[in-house]
């Protein structure tokens, strides 16, 4: 069983977000980078299945050399091999084209992506990769099982649940719930040293989206407290200050 997991680099969720160059660049100064949490869930689920059925897990990342510590972390968690496509991940189409190109060569039974990355939340890469490769795409999977021949997945749909079965090859984008992430052990960290990480060059691909500027959500104003029995004052404030009634 050969499985591919697409992993992206994102800022740690506690990062203080700031911008430079007139709000056109994300300020990466002293940012802690982590594996996109949903990708880590996907990886962990794939490892659990590998532990039952055997096989090889490859992680693939489109990024420059600074993403290698995250690939090593994926090794420490349990991935067997890594491929880094040596390019700045500019937009979803660009990233997906790179992944699809190299994934075709790998003959994988199935491919996991995170449903989205926690930074740009594009939620497109998985779908575009599947489209380019011409394989089924199952979006937003919180429960995944595989018996060696057929995968069974559950998806949340409006007002209920959908149970799907798919035969390889396919691509599923994984979301919370699929499993608990694993903390790398020291043995895992040591074995990560010798696992193969291949660096390949990007193929030609368009990049269609340019970010014009960023903006932070408006900061929350100060809270005013009104005594519970003073409805009159509340109405007055809503009328004169908040101007919503």
């Amino acid at each position, binding site marked *: 069983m050969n499985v591919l997991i697409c992993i992206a680099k994102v800022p740690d969720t*506690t990062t203080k977000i700031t911008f430079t160059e007139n709000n056109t660049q994300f300020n990466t100064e002293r940012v802690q980078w982590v594996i996109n949490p949903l990708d880590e869930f996907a990886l962990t689920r794939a490892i659990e299945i590998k532990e039952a059925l055997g096989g090889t897990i490859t992680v693939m990342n489109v990024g420059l050399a600074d993403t*290698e*510590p995250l690939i*090593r*972390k994926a090794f*420490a968690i349990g991935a067997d091999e890594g491929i880094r496509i040596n390019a700045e991940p500019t937009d979803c189409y660009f990233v997906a084209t790179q992944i699809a190109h190299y994934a075709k060569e790998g003959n994988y039974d199935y491919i996991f992506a995170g449903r989205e990355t926690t930074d740009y939340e594009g939620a497109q890469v998985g779908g575009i990769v599947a489209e380019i490769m011409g394989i089924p795409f199952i979006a937003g999977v919180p429960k995944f099982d595989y018996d060696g021949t057929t995968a069974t997945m559950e998806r949340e749909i409006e007002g209920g649940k959908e149970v799907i079965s798919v035969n390889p090859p396919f691509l599923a984008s994984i979301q919370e719930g699929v499993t608990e992430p694993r*903390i*790398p*052990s*020291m*043995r895992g*960290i*040591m074995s*990560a*040293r010798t696992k193969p990480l291949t660096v390949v060059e990007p193929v030609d691909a368009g990049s269609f989206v340019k970010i014009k500027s960023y903006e932070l959500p408006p900061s929350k104003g100060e809270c005013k407290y009104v005594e519970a029995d003073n409805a009159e004052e509340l109405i007055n404030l809503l009328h004169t200050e908040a101007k919503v009634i």
Partner: protein
Amino acid sequence: MSADLFTAPDYFQVDDLLSDEHKLVRDSCRAWVKKEVTPIIEEYAQKAEFPAHLVKGLADLGAFGPTIPQKYGGGGMDYISYGLMMQELERGDSGVRSTASVQGSLVMFPIHEFGTEEQKMKFLPKLASGEILGCFGLTEPDHGSDPAGLTSNIVDKGNHYLLNGAKMWITNANLADVSVVWAKDENGDIRGLLVEKGMEGFTAPEMHGKWSLRASATGELVFDNVKIPKENLFPDIKGLKGPLSCLNSARYGIAWGAVGAAMDCYDSSLRYAKERIQFGKPIASFQLIQKKLAEMITEITKAQLLAWRLGTLKNEGKATPQQVSMAKRNNVEIAVDIARQARQIHGAMGITDEYSIMRHMANLESVMTYEGTHDVHLLITGMDITGINAFS
């Protein structure tokens, strides 16, 4: 206890001195402590009970014998990684770190360093996997700082040794499957031997009534004509250098561990001081609180750099026991001081188990005494720089 919001201070960008692998080691241990230790530790400390269920997790994480070669089940890691692990474990609790120190530095280290191949193969993999626990018996009721005077003894009976004596203040004594025991032979030489649970005449009662390291088990080892098979003796090591080399390795871990406890107290204080409002403003706006916080981070930064430098020297095989003494003494002292200042910043909340402060503060009193007391380490530095022994 409230949620574990710990974020580590790094005022001098010490992170830049670490490799990516070191950072992964540290972050993994930190994540483990947040998940496994923080949620339960106050309860176990209050109950004065060792959280025995953590042993398996510590082993799976790789906290037992990280510097022992992988061939024997250890981690094969360097000393910076080992130090960072101890820092993170002690950030959780000094008692949890103590178990890792004893298992790794005081039990696996001497078996690996002084043991026969049979002893290594018999004990090391099981100690690494947490299947068995070990303890280290040097201190006796009448011999603490002066271990050379110890009176536990072995007599050669031809096909076995006969062991008599008693050890006191032994971490994990009552839980240990194997005890590394230091006793004198008929020539008065200190020898190391492996005493196994269940040997006739050997008992290990737990000691009670500690106000410190309450989540760590401490006990006695009592030997009444215990027959020790000859193959359980370390064959070649004689004299104090045996036990002292073990302590040197454990003390190194403490120099890092204490920084972890200090960081936890500082981090909690900084957060509390910014949130706690008195006289209409956060208490962090008062100069006296800022003085405490500023001094804490200054001392933590110095201690971090001392530990890091000691680690690089140790990796190069150049760290002297005297350097280890200085680092252990300094870093424990600053941690104790920081815990006390942190206690004040937290006001009355600081004495409760809602915060880790009072637990760290009480734990660190043991850490100040075990593995060579505060003053003994000072005298080691004194002797090193003057060439004059002021011990006796």
